[in-house]
């Protein structure tokens, strides 16, 4: 017995020391700094979008981003949906009408552009990827779900904590950091490929997108600061909404489900206690049940 027990202990000790061995490997991984965590109105179990922020974000998107980036999954009608930027149907209709979208074939089979309607989605900035590449040497990604398509490694033990704190904002934190992460020149010793820019947070640091934002580039009418920082946050929040348009409904229904399940679990727990009471505490009180064919088999 002794030796085998010792073997088991040794293996356990070995496993622990191996975990320690892995720690340096862990440190090598992070070449890009972790994006700073921002406060978002939509974070946490009661999170809701800040309507004014989404409207400002849409403005930034329309005046800056949409030259190169599409939102092909986002329909204009959703701008007036509950849990979104909170436009009225009339406002959403007006925004749609400012776009030219590809129309339907007419009687002669001709396809002409027409003004956008509520049912249309944001038109793509390029007819196809080749056109985008010809112009920018890269294909600017569609932004419809970009807030969920980007993120960064949280690493151990933070990812465990994220399960409890409900941190789901890696995407928006990364996007915000990316838009503010440009440096005028790469650090000494780093050469960038032609036509790319140095960004602290972009994986590999060489990004094809020129710095999109400058202070005062977009006019805000609601008194919010017209800074790169504010623009970056607003457009990131807007992109969170385009990626997760039903976030508010999800969290609201979630709370209802939660309360229901907790009450149900409590009731079931006490019912279970009552049902099992005699079995667990007073087995002698149990009525003898008819004999059967024990033992089995």
């Amino acid at each position, binding site marked *: 017995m002794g030796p*085998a027990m010792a073997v088991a202990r040794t293996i356990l000790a070995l496993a622990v020391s191996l975990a320690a061995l892995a720690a340096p490997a862990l440190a090598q991984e992070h070449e890009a700094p972790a994006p700073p965590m921002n406060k978002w109105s939509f974070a946490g179990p009661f999170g809701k979008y800040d309507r004014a922020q989404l409207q400002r974000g849409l403005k930034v998107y329309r005046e800056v981003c949409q030259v190169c980036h599409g939102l092909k999954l986002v329909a204009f009608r959703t701008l007036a949906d509950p849990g979104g930027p909170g436009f009225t149907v009339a406002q959403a209709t007006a925004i749609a009408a400012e776009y030219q979208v590809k129309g339907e074939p007419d009687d002669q089979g001709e396809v002409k552009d027409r003004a956008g309607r509520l049912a249309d989605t944001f038109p793509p900035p390029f007819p196809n990827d080749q056109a985008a590449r010809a112009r920018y040497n890269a294909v600017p990604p569609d932004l419809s779900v*970009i807030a969920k398509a980007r993120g960064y490694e949280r690493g151990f033990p933070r990812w465990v904590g994220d399960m409890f704190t409900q941190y789901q904002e*890696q995407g928006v934190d990364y996007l915000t950091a990316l838009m503010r992460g440009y440096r005028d020149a790469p650090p000494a010793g780093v050469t960038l490929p032609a036509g790319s820019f140095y960004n602290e947070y972009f994986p590999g640091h060489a990004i094809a997108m020129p710095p999109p934002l400058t202070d005062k580039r977009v006019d805000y009418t609601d008194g919010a600061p017209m800074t790169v920082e504010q623009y970056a946050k607003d457009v990131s929040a807007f992109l969170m909404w385009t990626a997760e348009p039903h976030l508010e409904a999800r969290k609201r229904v979630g709370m209802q489900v939660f309360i229901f399940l907790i009450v149900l679990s409590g009731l079931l727990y006490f019912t*279970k206690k009552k049902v099992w009471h005699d079995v667990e505490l007073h087995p002698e009180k149990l009525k003898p049940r008819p004999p059967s064919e*024990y*033992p089995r088999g």
Partner: protein
Amino acid sequence: MSGHPTYQPQSAFMRWMERRLPIGGLVYSSFVVYPTPRNLNYWWTFGGILAFMLGVQIVTGVVLAMHYTPQVDYAFDSVEQIMRDVNYGWLLRYLHSNGASMFFLAAYIHMFRGMYYGSYKEPREVLWILGVILLLLMIMTGFMGYVLPWGQMSFWAATVITNLFSAIPLMGESIVSWLWGGYAVGNPTLNRFYSLHYLLPFVIVGVVVLHIWALHVAGQNNPTGVEPKSEEDTVAFTPYATIKDSFLLAVFCILFAWFVFYIPNFLGHPDNYIPANPAVTPMHIVPEWYYLPFYAILRAIPNKLLGVMALAASILILAFLPWLDTSKVRSARYRPLYRQFFWVFVIVCVGLGWLGSKPPEGNYVLIARIFTVYYFAFFLVILPVLGKIERTKPLPNSISESVLREGKPIGAQAPPPAGAKA
């Protein structure tokens, strides 16, 4: 099962039915009076939870299939349409994607419980093997389901996993083309995965029926590993097991809801929200968390063919567990050494999962190799040898005895185990 009260139909309709199709009697004998050991702990509730999760996956999956388009140009957008435009589509989709994770979590707990208490031993070998078959079916179904949203991870996971078959000598390349339906992962691949992803869950249902049948023939194991010997040792399935299962199912649903409503993308990978692009390979291709231990074993071995064989062996070896474990004592409660090796095994499995998520370089590979060796040694060396040399603790004479003496068995006077106490 003579002995316990037989079914007495209460209504005229059920009396009419019982003479033609005795389904009332079947349900009554299987889920009402069926005797379950009185000492089952909460680890025994995961079978019911698994049945529930299978139901959730099938119901949400059937509705999702009504809205999904299995075509490479539309698959990604159709999933997004479900998230945006289908009423409660986001709920269906998040229930289904997180449901897969919960399904695997419950299955792994269920299996570890079976291993801890020796539930695979005589006469439950077939029951256990059916469970291993269920795991294999779940792995295939989950993998094909992950491909359907046709994101970057979907596409590249499909490419990497199907490519494993190319390691087979001589026929490898032909098999891979046959699986793909072409010379690369493409539309035919997506179509057949969709078809099989819809089919396999119903195969799982069929095997679950066999699994439950085998369970009801052999009876449930219990924490003592001592078979019930009298009526005193058991309680009726209803209300005792049903209420206990219901309670833990509700608690499990709280965990499930936490993921679905608050952190629905926690277990996913951001890259799968990028539409599949055969021209761009993601920096790290990682499978879903529930495949990570097997993925780590695959990558721990430098030779591709041997790696694939180790991957297959790591799952198939479970089927031989009833014969690899030579101990006559079932429960780890009475096996002081096995208990320690078991917990090391659990740590190794979790550790392999962590290593599977890491790039295969440096110390990670070294640790993965050591863990892989332990994984196989546990089955091939430790279990066969342990059964011969381990001095087990005295077993209680019966379940009631172990319960009434508060777990302190009063069995035959055996010398105390050496080591800690001697």
